[in-house]
Each structure stands twice: as structure tokens, then as C-alpha cells.
């Protein structure tokens, strides 16, 4: 097994007095695709936000390429190669589309913005609009594009398909697969549409009440309808 | 026994310098005359009302009387603050010595009020005579739009008209005016020979005088006349050369040439710390203390407001500002009003140089109100 690029050990986190995650551990090898699944409110978003440095970590370690992240502010984590696309999109509403992308560039040349426009031509049409004026799907595109522009080595995607048209979803998943396959990126994905997630991932982690309840490959999960029913509340997978 | 005197004034906030002068005058008096009257120790209790706030003033006055047990109330920079306390006096059996608040009517609110400062009628009316004497025919008045400003305007206008002069225009401007250029433009356009102005002492005077110069009124020979608030000594260093030659009428100048004043100024400067901060409220406080000491003497330290006030009616003495007396009828101070010119002293500092005297002026304001 190749050395883990992202390694999370004994992670506990939450909001103020509310503990949400308890003792979560897992490791992700470079270039792999991990799907994190679980029911509503189990703590998927919290897990990603904690790794990205936006939620309080009570204890545990987060290592990226062997480097401990837990003491660092989120900007330093981003500069170490962590990219985060939050569920809430978090577009900068008073910045234009182009300016939103500029923020994501980190220290890259301005011209690199073209990459984002290649990925989502829709954004180029809207480049002078303010973030607050975008449609829901356009915001989702912008959020993803913005993070990818920073060339992260580990990418956390929290429901990146929400609100996107089916065609775009397909294209986007294909694009992610390509990025991961080329070994440029390790991708962690939270997705409600279980089938899409399983098609994409090479490894699956299922959370239940803030803890890791199941872990294995997509094939194993598909083969285990009881677990799927119990942990994900979904009848069967086609 | 210890006799307590409660002093209410603006000791912090935008008018802190006036409160500081109260304290300097009081300290100076006690330094020169001791803190004992007969067997009684005198204790001063200060309470702060930073800006005109009658409710606060009344609450504090009440506290001073009821809780601290003061026998005398004194101070009061603003008229409404003094007015608010007057209803207490009778029941509390406490005299009130006004050390600054300058609206004529205060003394009528209670028989226990004595005032040792001035009124705007008192300081403004003589200026009309000066104007007349100097051959000014047409005057425009510019005053801040609040009680004292209106008083000052009325005093000047009434007197100047009685002297046969003409008021070409009367401008009242908001207290918060910062930029006086448009006002100066009006003055220019009015065709007046002179402008009579009243603004409360403080930061705005600086802008006013500068605007007067910068807009070329000085060069055009339009005289600037004002009561002395505009050239308060503590503002003079900031005004600098631009104020030179300004004419003001007032009851007191730090530079007043008399032995009493020399002693007072020396003591008061010591009390205030920074000599540049000394200005007119200190003399009101100083004489206020003189009146209170007299009252204590007369009552032998007993609490008897009527007796105390009666004792100082008609009292006359030599104040640092010159000869003064308490008018037995109005209980307001009768004093000389001086015409002064802003000049440079030998040591390079700016002073209000007295150049003429109007002797024994009472308060024309009360008469006018009747």
C-alpha cells in the first residue's frame, strides 16, 4: 500500500459544547478517491470542515504528506496543498465571478483563470457578475472552480453536485476522475446520490453518529444491502 | 465642624477646561484664604455633568444635599443645569452660588440664588456702545443658535438700535457649525461695517476667526466685535496671530492689571497646573468662594440659607477683575466691563489687553425681560 497522503487519527471535533465527531481515523493514499457517506447530520460536513481548519478540533491528528496540520490556521493548510469546497458554497457575494476566482489562484499567474473557464464556460459568460447574483448551480460551479485553481493535492468536495444539471454532473465527475487518475489529486467526496459516489470512488467510508461505522470498497458495499439499508437508509442500489 | 460645599460643573467631556477652571479658582481661593472659616473646616465635593443635562444635574444636586449633606451648592457652567436645581433649594435650605451659567433669569427662579459670574446681556451690551463710538453704522450679528447666543444678540441689537445704529442682518447658526466660510460670505454680502459675533468658547471659535481672516473680511476692514467668550485666554495660543486686534467686551481678563489679580493669577496658575489653561470661569469660582466664605461667617456655620443670602446682599469687594458688588435686589454681581483688544505681550504670549472700562454694570437682561 502506498504511503498515506492524508492521514486522520483519533479525530474528535464539534461546535462549542456539542461534540459531533468522535474518534474518527482513516488514511487516504495519494491519487485515490474516497467517498464519505452517511445519513443526514452524521457529521460529514463537520469532518471536512475540521480537516480544512474551520471547525474546532478537540483532539486527534491530521497529517498531510506527513506534516501535522492540526495546529495550523486554515490559510496555511490551504498553502500546504489542501483544497476545500464547502457544502454551503461560500461564494464571496460582493466579489465578481472573476474576483472570486482570483482569490482561489493563491500565487499563480492571473492567466490561469482560463482553466476555470475551460471547465465551466458558463462562468466566463457571467464573469463580471457579482457572486450574489449567480444562480444556485452557477455558484456551485464557481465554488468548485475556485478551489481547483489553487492546484490542491488533496481535494475535499462536500456535495459538489448539488444543484447542478445532470449533464454538468456527468462532465464534472468525469473531470474529477481524470484529475485523480493522473495522480495530480487525491479526492475526498461527500455525495448524497450514493450511486454516483460509488461509481466514482475506489474506497468508501460510512459515518454513523459521528463515528466510522463501515469502511471498504464500493463493490463490497454494493454487495451488502443490509449495511446499506442500515447505515444509509436506502433500499437497494441498482 | 466640617462644612461641605457641593460643586457641579463639566469636569470631563467637551467642556472639561471650564470645569478645570472652576476647580482652579476654588483651589486658589482656599490656598490664599485657608480652608477654615472660624472653627469650621471647608470641604469641597465635586460632581461632574459633562454637558448640559438638567436631569443629571438635579439628581446630583439632590444627592449632594441629601447624601453628602452639603450646606452650599455652587458651580454650574450651563443654565439648564442651574435651573434644574433651583426647585430644591428652599426645601433643602441651601443657597446656590452660580459661578458661570449666564442666562439672566436664573436668579429669579429662587431667592437663594446668588451669581458671581456675568450675564450675556452684561457683557454684550457695552459692545454696542463701543461700536457706536468707533463710528460703526451698520452691523451684522452672527450668533450660535442657542440660549446664550440669542441673549447676546438681543443685548447687542437692543442697545445698538437705542444708540441709533442699524442692524443689517442677524444670523443664527447651529452650534455644530464647522465651516464658517458661507457665513463669512453672507457677512460680506450684507454690506455691514462690522460683525458682532457670539460663539461659546471652545474649538469652533478657532474656525470662526480663521474663516474671518481667510475670507478676506479682515482685509476688507470689517471689524469683528464680540463678547470675551470668543477670545478666552486658553484659546488664544491656538488662535495665534489671526486674532490680533480683535475687540471684545468682557468682565475679566487674565492680564487685568491690579495687585489682587496678580495674586489670584499666580495662585490659580499653580492650581491648574498648565498656566495656558487658565481663563474666565476661574474668577467666577474664586469670587463665588469669597461669597460662600462670607455666608459661612455670617451664619456661624449654621445651615440657614435665608440668613446666608441676606448677608451677602449688597456686599462689595475688590475682586481680581476689579471692584464688584452683589446687587441686593437681583443677587447678581455688579462689575466693570472692559473693552479689550487681543495683543501680544512682551513675553510673546497673547493677551486680552484692556483698553477701556465701563464701570459698575448691572444686568440689563433682567430689566429687558420684564
Amino acid at each position, binding site marked *: 500500500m502506498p504511503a498515506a497522503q492524508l492521514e486522520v487519527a483519533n479525530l474528535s471535533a464539534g*461546535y462549542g459544547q*456539542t461534540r459531533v465527531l468522535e474518534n474518527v481515523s482513516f488514511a487516504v493514499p495519494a491519487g485515490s478517491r474516497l467517498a464519505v457517506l452517511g*445519513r*443526514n*447530520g452524521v457529521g460529514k*460536513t463537520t469532518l471536512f470542515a475540521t480537516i480544512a481548519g474551520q471547525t474546532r478540533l478537540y483532539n486527534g491528528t491530521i497529517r498531510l504528506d506527513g506534516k501535522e496540520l492540526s495546529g495550523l490556521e486554515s490559510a496555511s493548510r490551504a498553502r500546504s496543498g489542501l483544497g476545500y469546497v464547502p*457544502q*454551503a458554497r461560500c461564494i464571496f457575494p460582493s466579489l465578481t465571478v472573476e474576483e472570486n476566482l482570483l482569490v482561489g489562484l493563491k500565487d499563480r499567474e492571473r492567466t490561469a483563470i482560463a482553466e476555470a473557464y475551460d471547465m465551466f464556460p*458558463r462562468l466566463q459568460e*457571467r464573469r463580471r457578475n457579482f457572486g450574489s*447574483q*449567480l*444562480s*444556485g*448551480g*452557477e455558484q*456551485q*460551479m464557481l465554488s468548485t472552480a475556485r478551489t481547483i485553481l489553487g492546484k490542491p493535492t488533496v481535494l475535499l468536495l462536500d*456535495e459538489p453536485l*448539488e*444543484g*447542478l*444539471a*445532470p*449533464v*454538468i*454532473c*456527468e*462532465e464534472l465527475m468525469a473531470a474529477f476522475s481524470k484529475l485523480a487518475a493522473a495522480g495530480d489529486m487525491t479526492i475526498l467526496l461527500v455525495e*448524497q*446520490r*450514493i450511486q454516483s459516489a460509488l461509481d466514482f470512488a475506489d474506497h468508501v467510508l460510512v459515518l454513523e453518529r459521528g463515528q466510522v461505522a463501515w469502511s471498504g470498497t464500493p463493490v463490497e458495499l454494493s454487495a451488502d444491502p443490509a449495511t446499506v439499508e442500515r447505515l*444509509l*437508509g*436506502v433500499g437497494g442500489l441498482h | 465642624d466640617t462644612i461641605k460645599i457641593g460643586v457641579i460643573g463639566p469636569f470631563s467631556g467637551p467642556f472639561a477646561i471650564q470645569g478645570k477652571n472652576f476647580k482652579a479658582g476654588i483651589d486658589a481661593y482656599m490656598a490664599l484664604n485657608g480652608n477654615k472659616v472660624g472653627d469650621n473646616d471647608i470641604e469641597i465635593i465635586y460632581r461632574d455633568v459633562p454637558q448640559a443635562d438638567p436631569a443629571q444635574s438635579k439628581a446630583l444636586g439632590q444627592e449632594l444635599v441629601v447624601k453628602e449633606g452639603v450646606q452650599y451648592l455652587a458651580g454650574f457652567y450651563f443654565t439648564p443645569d442651574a435651573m434644574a436645581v433651583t426647585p430644591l433649594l428652599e426645601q433643602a435650605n441651601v443657597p446656590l452660588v452660580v459661578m458661570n451659567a449666564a442666562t439672566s433669569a436664573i436668579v429669579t427662579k429662587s431667592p437663594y440664588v446668588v451669581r458671581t459670574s456675568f450675564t450675556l446681556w452684561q457683557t454684550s451690551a457695552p459692545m454696542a456702545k463701543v461700536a457706536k463710538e468707533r463710528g460703526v453704522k451698520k452691523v451684522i450679528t452672527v450668533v450660535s443658535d442657542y440660549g446664550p447666543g440669542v441673549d447676546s444678540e438681543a443685548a447687542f441689537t437692543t442697545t445698538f438700535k437705542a444708540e441709533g445704529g442699524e442692524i443689517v442682518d442677524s444670523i443664527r447658526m447651529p452650534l455644530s457649525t464647522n465651516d464658517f466660510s458661507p457665513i463669512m460670505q453672507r457677512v460680506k454680502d450684507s454690506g455691514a461695517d462690522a460683525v458682532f459675533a457670539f460663539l461659546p468658547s471652545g474649538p469652533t471659535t478657532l474656525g470662526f476667526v480663521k474663516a474671518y481672516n481667510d475670507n478676506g473680511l479682515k482685509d476688507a476692514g470689517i471689524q469683528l466685535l464680540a463678547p470675551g467668550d470668543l477670545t478666552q485666554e486658553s484659546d488664544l495660543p491656538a488662535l495665534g496671530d489671526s486674532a490680533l486686534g480683535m475687540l471684545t467686551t468682557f468682565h475679566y481678563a487674565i492680564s487685568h492689571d491690579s495687585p489682587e489679580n496678580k495674586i489670584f493669577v499666580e495662585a490659580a496658575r499653580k492650581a491648574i497646573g498648565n498656566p495656558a489653561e487658565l481663563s474666565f470661569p476661574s474668577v467666577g469660582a474664586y469670587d463665588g468662594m469669597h461669597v460662600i466664605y462670607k455666608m459661612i461667617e455670617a451664619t456661624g456655620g449654621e445651615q440657614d440659607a435665608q440668613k446666608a443670602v441676606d448677608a451677602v446682599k449688597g456686599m462689595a469687594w475688590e475682586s481680581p477683575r476689579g471692584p464688584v458688588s452683589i446687587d441686593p435686589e437681583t443677587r447678581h454681581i455688579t462689575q466693570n466691563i472692559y473693552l479689550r483688544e487681543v495683543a501680544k505681550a512682551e513675553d510673546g504670549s497673547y493677551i486680552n489687553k484692556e483698553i477701556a472700562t465701563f464701570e459698575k454694570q448691572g444686568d440689563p437682561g433682567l430689566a429687558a425681560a420684564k
Partner: protein
Amino acid sequence: MSTVFEARHLNKSFGGLAVAKDISISLARGDRVALIGPNGAGKTTFINLVTGHLAPDSGTVMFDDADVTALSPTKRVRQGLVRSFQVTRLFSEMTPAEHVALAVLQRTGRSGRMLGNFQAMQDVMAEVQESLHSLGIDHVANRRVSEIAYGQQRLLEIALALALRPKVLLLDEPAAGVPQSDTSRIETALAALPADLAVLMIDHDMDLVFRFARRVVVLAAGAIIFDGSPQEVTQDMRVREAYLGNYANARSAA
């Protein structure tokens, strides 16, 4: 069936961008319509125009045979034209119970009462319980909304709209962010709606759309390019290209 709602020739553009081009849609009582289309096609804008949150450049909105184009959003809601929001708009410091109670009180004309307390009003409490229960969020009824998971907030958003007992219900991506396990709750809730209620739903989850809709309207670049049955829509080449992609193939194959 009678028409309750009709949008006639709506036009709207932002600067140079036309987001509604001569849109006309009518809904009859009991209609279950899905409005789909590419991102940025103008679906949310259409709802905003209809509800009065945006003013159309031209065109009219008819509701119950009356022209409501000039009415404020509030008045339209009171008549029964209710929407949900694509991005949840909830009161983060209040609890789900309070949310629904507020809607119920508003509907029953009691929201301006200055006496009493909704918790003491039996009927309100009963309805709150019932409504939260039916969407499966009654266990968080008394938590602050800021503390509940996003998916639960989406469900609450729907509960709110339903509590207003609309005649026409406009749902903007009700299932976005709701896990697959819970979309069924939304479907159940929708299925339980009064039969004469007209519902127009926007969503990108095609499984949901096809289970729900009896009619599909497709919007692209501000104009209606298709209005017909779910069966027909998967066959329409333009729709497949602009929107459905492989989904249509998968579906036709199935």
C-alpha cells in the same frame, strides 16, 4: 380542470442578459409540474417574478382569475401563492417548532397577537408536531436551526411552505442537499398534499422529478423549449443535449 395560476408573456432581463423571454405557463388545480433546465436558465428568476420578489419588465401574473402583477409578495402569499427558497432562508436563532408555529399563526391570522404564547395554543402545537413529524424532523423541533444539519434545514423549509396551506406551491430545488434516504420523506409529504393543490417544482434530481411530475416544462436560456409529458421529454433531442445528457439514455434504456 380549472386554471388557478397563469403567467402570461413574462419578460425580464438583467442588463444585457435576458433571463425570461416571453414565458407563459399556466397551472390547473391538482397539477404536478416540474420545471427543469440548465443552470442559469432562469428557473429561480421565474419563481421570483411570479411571487413578486422581482418585478417583470413586461407580462402579467394571474392568480385565481385576478391580475396580481402589482401585488406585493406578501399579499400574494396570503392569497395562497407560496414558495420555498433554493438557498435555505431560515431564522437561525429560532427553533423548527417556532418556524412552523409562526407559519401556522400567520395563516390563521394570529401572528399579530400581542398576548399569549403559541405553546399554549393547542391547535397550533398539534399542527406543528404533525408537520415536523411527517418530515421526520420532530426530534430536532426544539433545537436552534443553526445547530441542525443542512438536510434537516431543507426539510424544514418545505414544512414551512406546507404550513401555509397554499393553493399554488412553488418549490425551488426542495431536494437539493437532502440525502437520498430522506428524499422519500419529501415525496411522501408531497403525495399527501391536497389533490387540488397545484405544485410546480424545480429540481435537478431527475429520479425525483420523474417520479413526481405529470408534466415537465423545460427552460433554457430564459425561454420555454419544451412543455409536455415526462415520457416525451426524454425523447426531445434539444433537452437531452442541453440538460439531461446520459440520464436520458439510462432512462430510456430502463
